[in-house]
């Protein structure tokens, strides 16, 4: 069956450091992946996406890496800021999105 999971439920980082949030997926037929950020009291917001024919995609301060060999997805946040504190979800898509349980990112000042 399909599943998307996260290795670490909570990640604490010092302000200014880089953050890496990891995600494992099990459906090798998934062809599209997304990272969402959810702040307290809000709905998930799109951060960055990547197609399965890509290994890496960069946005503003964020980079997503896709390793199809081991079915692993990661989100890297450069120079983490207090405003980055949130729950981060990965999601994979074949016909519809399947979400992981989420990782809490806490930024220490």
């Amino acid at each position, binding site marked *: 069956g399909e599943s998307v999971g996260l290795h670490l439920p909570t990640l604490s980082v010092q302000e200014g450091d880089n953050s890496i949030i990891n995600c494992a997926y099990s459906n090798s037929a998934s*062809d*599209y992946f*997304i990272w*969402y950020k959810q702040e307290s*009291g*809000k*709905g*998930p*917001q*799109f951060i960055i*996406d990547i*197609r399965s024919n890509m290994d890496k995609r960069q946005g503003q301060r964020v980079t997503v890496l896709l390793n199809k060999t081991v079915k692993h997805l990661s989100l890297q946040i450069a120079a983490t800021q207090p405003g980055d504190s949130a729950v981060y*979800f990965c999601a994979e*898509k074949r016909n*519809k*999105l399947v*979400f*992981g*349980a*989420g990782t809490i990112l806490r930024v220490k000042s």
Partner: protein
Amino acid sequence: DVKVTQSSRYLVKRTGEKVFLECVQDMDHENMFWYRQDPGLGLRLIYFSYDVKMKEKGDIPEGYSVSREKKERFSLILESASTNQTSMYLCASSIGYREAGYTFGSGTRLTVV
């Protein structure tokens, strides 16, 4: 700015009541979705719709129904609310092609007492 609007942020209902959760999107999206979000369980798909008057069951449809009479509006209905339906409910929409993400509303936190 594109928007998905859920009519209520917080709702408290009694067991056995019929509950309507409303969602409206202004992006002319074909697809709309209802999720519930519970601690440790992530987002679970209840129902979705690919077009007006069309609906498909998601992973946990029991105890719920939906209505999509207009493209921009997707309603979630709890026919007889129960305490185990206390949750955060999230509506989302997407354009109708494969590599498209979802835009979410802010959520409705429903408490059934």
